[in-house]
Each structure stands twice: as C-alpha cells, then as structure tokens.
C-alpha cells in the first residue's frame, strides 16, 4: 500500500534504490506524489548520493508552497520496501493540513536553545491537532537537551516526535535537509523543526522490545554519554565481562557492534527502561561510549532481547500509534526506527519487521528511516529514546 486518499486528504510513500541520484529521487517522488501537490515531502536517503541532483527530481514535482525536509540515514523504509542504500520519499497533502518549519543551526554546545528555536514554528500552526517533528544531527552529543528545550516551548499538550540523522553508523557526518521547490539546503549540525497541524487526530506509538538481564549496576562515574565506571569498576571491563567476550573484540568494529547492540544499557524509569546503546569502548581510559546521557548515580541494567521481540516491537509501535487516533481511519505513518536495532535483528529481521509494521497497520502507507536516536513524547516529560521504534500516524 503506497498511497491512501480520504476525502481529498492523501498520504503517499515511495522508495528507490537506483544509483543515479536524479533518477532515484524522481522514481521515489513519482510513487509517493502520484501527480498531486503535497503540503510536505519527507526525503530520507542513504549517504553517498549526490543530494542536489536527487532533489532535482523531487523539487520538479513539488508545489510553490510545498515544504521539503529530510535527512541522511543508516537505511530507509517506504513504499513497502527497506533498503540500506536508497531513498525513501513520504508526502501528504489535501485539506486540513498545515506544515511550518524552523531550522536551528550550529547547535553543538547549545542543544537546549536549539530545541527551543526549532519548536518556535509551532506558533504558526493553529489546527486542533498538532505535533512537533524534529530531525536532528545524530552526532551533536546529548540530544535529550534538544527535547527538553522543545518541550519547554511545546508544553505537554503537543506531542514531540522525530529522529536523528545517520550515516550508516560511521559517525562521521550526517546531513539535514530543508527547503522547497526553489531549492533545498543541505545542512549539518542543525535541528529541523517541523510543526505538523491537522484537522484530524495524530497518533504516536513507542516500543522497544527489551528486558532486563542480570543484576543492576550503579553508574559510579560518568560524564554525559561517556560511562567511566560501573559499580566502582572500569565500565569497559564490566561490560566485556558481562558479555563474556575478550577485549580483542574492540579490534573488529562489526563484531563489537553485534555483541554490544544486543546488550544495551537500560536506565531505571517509572514506565520501564530508557535504552542506551553502547557504541564503542576506549582501551586507554576503560570507558564505554553511549550517544546519549547516562547520569552519574543512575541505576542501570544490561538489557537483552531476542530477534522475535525486537522485530515485533516495530509492529507494536505502529499499532499503538493507530490506537491513539481516536478511532478514525489512518491515512499514513512516519516511522523512526533505531539503526542499532537493524544491526541487532540482521537483514532477515529487517524484512520481518517491515512485514510486522504492515500487518499492524493494514492498508496504511508508511515511510521512514533508520535513526541514531528517536524522539517521542506523548506522556510525561521525557522524550529522547534509543533502540526504539517511534511511529507518527495521521488520520
């Protein structure tokens, strides 16, 4: 199911794995738009494309007021397919929709302010149902601060969703896109805020599929996303011992990831655990790196899962999103799925996961990407997640 049309409101999703950027952009856009003028177009593409040419094929199909946003990824989904290298285009339009944007630039070192700035576009949208969607650079540090900043503006009545751009988990540089028919800016170190307004309800789903393993540990020394000590011992030593692997695993990035991504850290929270993925270890100071804040003094568990639980989480997220649409029919959905989950479930798992989403949201087109951090706040005040799938559904 690539397109749905309800009373003039429509949602479409397209996907291309062509290597020629212009052809890939054109193919994905043609499938998503089907000749209609969209309010907004989301473009998620793998790193390696010559992006300006890719946008040529998309901009040619946009209207004068169409908003084009997006980012680079660690894989994308849409049009019923999943790819490592490719482009996914998701768009919607028709009556009762409004989209406004604000870009916060040079955000490193001032993430909270960036969140405040990005959320400023909400004021320009006055539909009865609103959400703030954010596309962030995945390499700017403690992204929780961006969400805190955005929440301070948006307040509890507006859901926050979104994801952080990726670069195939190389952690070198990610890109954010923002523009329209007349041109699209290619940015780094930016937060693109997208205020989504709709006359019909919006729904958000969150799921991860992890459970605690073994005894709890206290973070006895940490600074932001870097954990130095667990239970007073060097964190890397504790982690390797718990995994039952030798230090030499650090020599092989791929092997380390496979081991580490299956055992993230879980921070103790009221409604479950906040997941923190361990991305690397430092042999010199014996610390481990997470891309998000792990507060000193926190209680953490090593988490475990199984391919079935992880794969099923995507479907659960989708189902949850539909449930919160107040019973109305779903038009389409955006999916923000953690790139580390993809590594954990493997390529076979990716296919089942995609099928699972389609099964949970029958006849609902969806598109999205594999992220380096997921944003979702519907309840409470927390909104930054890891190793999680977030779904935004439109009705």
């Amino acid at each position, binding site marked *: 199911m690539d397109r749905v049309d309800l009373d003039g409101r429509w949602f479409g999703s397209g996907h291309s794995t062509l290597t020629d950027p212009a052809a890939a952009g054109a193919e994905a856009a043609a499938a998503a738009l089907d000749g209609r003028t969209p309010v907004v177009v989301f473009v998620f593409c793998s790193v390696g494309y010559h992006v300006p040419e890719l946008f040529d094929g998309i901009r040619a199909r946009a209207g004068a007021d169409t908003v084009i946003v997006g980012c680079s990824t660690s894989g994308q989904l849409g049009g019923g397919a999943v790819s490592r290298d490719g482009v996914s285009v998701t768009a919607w339009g028709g009556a009762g929709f409004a989209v406004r944007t604000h870009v916060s630039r040079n955000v490193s070192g001032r993430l909270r302010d960036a969140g405040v700035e990005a959320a400023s576009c909400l004021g320009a949208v006055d539909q009865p149902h609103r959400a703030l969607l954010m596309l962030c650079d995945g390499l700017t540090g403690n992204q929780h601060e961006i969400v805190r900043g955005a929440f301070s503006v948006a307040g509890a009545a507006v859901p926050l969703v979104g994801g952080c751009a990726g670069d195939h988990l190389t952690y070198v540089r990610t890109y954010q896109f923002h523009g329209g028919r007349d041109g699209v800016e290619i940015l780094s170190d930016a937060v693109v805020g997208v205020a989504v307004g709709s006359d019909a309800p919006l729904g958000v789903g969150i799921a991860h599929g992890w459970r605690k393993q073994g005894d709890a540990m206290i973070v006895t020394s940490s600074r932001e996303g870097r954990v130095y000590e667990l239970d007073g011992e060097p964190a890397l030593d504790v982690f390797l011992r718990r995994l039952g692997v030798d230090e030499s695993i650090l020599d092989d990035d791929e092997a380390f990831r496979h081991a580490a991504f299956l055992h993230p850290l879980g921070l*103790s929270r009221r409604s479950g655990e906040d997941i923190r993925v361990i991305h690397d270890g430092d042999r010199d100071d014996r610390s481990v790196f997470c891309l998000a804040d792990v*507060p000193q003094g*926190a209680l953490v568990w090593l988490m475990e899962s199984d391919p079935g639980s992880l794969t099923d989480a995507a479907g659960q997220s989708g189902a949850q999103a539909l449930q919160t649409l107040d019973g109305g029919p779903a038009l389409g959905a955006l999916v923000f799925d953690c790139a580390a989950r993809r590594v954990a479930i493997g390529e076979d798992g990716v296919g089942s996961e995609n099928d699972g989403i389609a099964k949970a949201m029958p006849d609902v087109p969806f598109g999205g990407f594999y992220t380096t951090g997921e944003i979702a706040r519907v309840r409470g*005040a927390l909104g930054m997640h890891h190793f999680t799938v977030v779904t935004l559904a439109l009705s």
Partner: protein
Amino acid sequence: MNHWSTHQLTEFFAAVCESQDERGAITLAVERAAEVLEAEVGAVLRGDRVEVARGVDRDLLDVALPAGPQAVLSLPGLDDLNIGSARFGTEPRGLLMVARAGDPLDPEERQLLQAMAQTLGLALSNIALLTAERRLRAERERESAERLALVQSLREARHDSLTGLPTRVLFLEILAEKLHTTAPTGVLFIDLDRFKAVNDSLGHRAGDDLLGHVAARIRDCLRPVDTGARIGGDEFAVLLDDTGAENAVPVAWRIIESLRRPFRIAGRDVFIGASIGIATGTSGFDADDLLGNADVAMYRAKKDGPGKVVVFEPAMHAEALARLTLTADLRHALAADQFRLLYQPLIRLDSGRATGVEALIRWSRPGSGFLPPAGFLPLAEENGMIADIGRWVLRTAGAQAARWRRTIPELTLNVNVSGRELVDPGFAADVERTLADCGLPAAAVTLELTESVLMSDPRTAVASLTDLRDLGVGLAIDDFGTGYSSLSYLQRLPVDELKIDRAFISRAEPTTADLAVIRTVVELARALKLRTVVEGVETAAQHLAMRELGCDYGQGYHLCRPIEPESVPAAFAGPLTD
C-alpha cells in the same frame, strides 16, 4: 530497595546541586521531577504564585491551579491531571508540584517527590549561602583592588612617571629624613635653560624625551647615596648626602657640564643648559625651607646669566622677598591704573624741530614714588605680565598720538616692544587691531626693539619683524651697539631706524675715538638706508658733534627731557634747540 523511584533521587540530587544560581536550580528541579515522575506538568510555587512551570504556560497554570485541596488539574488539550506536591524551605516556603495524566502518584512516588523537594530546599539554601559568600568575596576583592589602586596612585604621586625620579613630595620626605642626622646635607636646585624653546619648537613629546635624558645625566653625576628628583616642569633637585657647600659646588658644575653636551632628540642635536642654586643644612633644618633656599640661589644664578652656580646666602632671602612683593604689586598695578606715560620728543638735529615722540612708561608704586622701567619691566618680562603692560602702552600712546595728530599731522610715535611680545604669534594682529581702534595710521608708528632681543633669536626675529613690517609700521633697533649684532643679520632685518646707544657719547666732550665709532655706525646706517637716532644727547657739544657726523635725529636732556602729555603740543610749536 530496587524500586525505580529511589534510584532517581541520586540523579536528581546531582543535577540540582550542580546549579550555580537559584533560578537554574529551580528550573532543573521542576524539569527533572516531571521527567522522573513522568508528569506532563511540573512547577515550583512560592507565595502561591507559580515561579517556574514546565509543560504548560506559567500564567495559564497560575489561573488553572485549584484554590482548594482538590488534587486534579484541568488544562486545555490534556486529560485531567493528578496533582502531587511537596513543600520545601522555610522562608519563603516553596512548593514543588507535578501533575500527571493517568495514575495518581503512589505512596513511593509521593515520598520521592517529598525527597526531591527537600533536596531542592537544601540546594537553594546552599546557593543562598554561596551567593552571599560570593558577594562578600567580590566585595572584598573590590576593596582590595581599590586599596591597590590607591597605593599605586600614591606611588605615582611619589615617583615621576616620565623620568622615574622621586617627585617633590618624596624628595622632601627623604630630605626631612636626612635632616635628622648631624651630617650636613647639600641640596641643588637645577633649572634648565632654553627648555621651553625646545618644547615649543620640537613639541611636547620631544620635550618629554629630553627630560628623560636630562634625568639620566643628572643621575650619572651622583653617588648611589645621593638622590635626584624632578620637582616641577623643567626643575630638578638633588640631595647630596653628607655634603657641605664646598663639596656641593663641584657636583653642580659637573651637572652643568653634563647638561651642556648636546642631546640627540627627534633626530637632531639639541643644546640646553642649566642654572643651579645650592643650599646646605644640618640637623634641625626644615626640608621645605632648605629646598626653598636652593630655589632662591638658583634664581640668582639664573639672573646672573645662564649656566651659573650660586650658593645661597641669607641676604638673598630679602631680595627674594622684595621680588615677591614687587610681583604682587605689579599684578595689581594695571587694574589700579598706576601706570602713566611720559613722552620724549625725537628732534631733527639739522632743524632742531621735534618730529615725533617716544612713549616712556612710569609706575607710580604706592609708597615708592615713580619707578623707572628698569625697576619693574625685567620682572614683568619674566612673569609674562609684559604682554598686558605692552598692550596698555600701545593703546594709551596710540590714542594720545591720534589726538595730537589732529593738530600736528606730522607727529610720529615710537613705542618699545619686549622680546616676549615679539615671539608672541598673535602680536602683529594685536598691533593692527589696536592701531585701527585708535585711528592711528601704521606709518605713524615705529616699534623699538633692543639689539639683544633681536640677536638672541635672529631667525624668529626676522619672521616676526616681517609680519609687523607688512602692517606698515616702522621698526627701530634700540640701544644699538650694546649687543653683538651680526652684520649679516643687520642687513637682513627689515628695520628702518638705528638708535645709537647713549654709551657712545657718555663723555660730555666726545673724544676723537668716540666720534670715529659713531661715524662708522652712521655710515653703516646710511649704507643700509636706515635713519639714525642718537640717544643721550645731554650737552650742546654732543649735539653739535652729532649733527656734524650726519646723525638724523637726537634724544636727550639737552634736546628735551621726557615730558607730560599735556606739554607735547608746545614742544612741537617751534624749534627746541638752535
């Protein structure tokens, strides 16, 4: 033990205590409490007003908060929220509040909120203490900086920033200290000659540079136990330890010699000099008095001629005192209208007729009678009052001459001009304005300048005289023959008249030698096309001799004494001599 809520307290505590200011701590506490308890809304209230809110606009919350003990908060766009709150602090009391959709806070969560509130209360009182301490520290630092600045300014007041030498203040302190001992102490008061000229011609920066070099040379002439100081613009002082007058004099000469050598300033050699006064004292002397004595001696040295050394003698005090009184009286004289003018006619020697008058100033000093110019003009020149006096003379004599010329149209006026007036850049314009005010044509006026004034700085003199000449006034060299005129300059000075000094005809009956000198001067004047006036003609023989030598004009008691203005018209009525 492993309930999730207790684990959050350490995180909360660490985060809140990290804040440096009250507002930051409260904001953080609200934010973290809402996050931990998964509450949509968090707030801190103080005095029943919402101070910080998260998840909802503060004003909106202020209005929406239930007044009574209801535990439910209704906000637009949200389900009803269950309120949980905990008090903290003493005065003012605060309330940490969260409001959450769904389940109300369970007992452990309420306990956690209470612990968070207490933590916040502790953090706030710590911050208040730290802030007070920081303020105190800042205050102390400010005070200590002020003290330092005061010490620095005192130091600056005691050391001259230009030369690094002690100032007058410090010099007197050191001197007073020395005067506690029985050994004699010598004080040199050094005044630079021609320093002002350097400052005026090369600029203040060059002047400052020169003072630095002078200080260094003075220091080089001293022993380590001696002290040099800069006590005024171009005045220095030296304290010579354990030194009487006889040993101080050679030091003074050494300094004069050292300062006489050229200074390399602004790319050129600059020549100055110094005059030094010496005073010595022993135990019991007052430091101020001793320095004053050296100053008096210096004044005498300066008067004796540049580059002199004079040792103080008590009699000099009387002179200095007299000078001070004279200065004070002189300052008063103009305002009190104590000056008056006499006029001495200039007589054509061939006809015996008066053709012009020279204005001569007299001071009617109360208690002293009439003072001749020599009794006060040098002092007036020294302290600058000469400019005002000169202006008064020109204005008074000019107005008088203009009146006389109504009946005696050929009458001309000679007025004396001082060296200080000549170098004043505004002098020519001043003269022009005064003559215009009096209604006296410039051609009827001759300004007289002494030979020594013109020759002390001939280059400036030529420039100034040219400006005056351009006005149309005549120029005369007064007292010619008493100085050391360079004949080459004499030729280049734009003058019209030579007034031959009375010294050449001091004998009632001029000798052949006297006449030979005067003849030479007259011939020189004729060659340069200058009029000649001979001064001091006091006998008939002198008159005759001068007429025969070809002098054009004469002045002197034999011809006519200086007369009151009212007698002038009569003097022009007919020939005054045969």
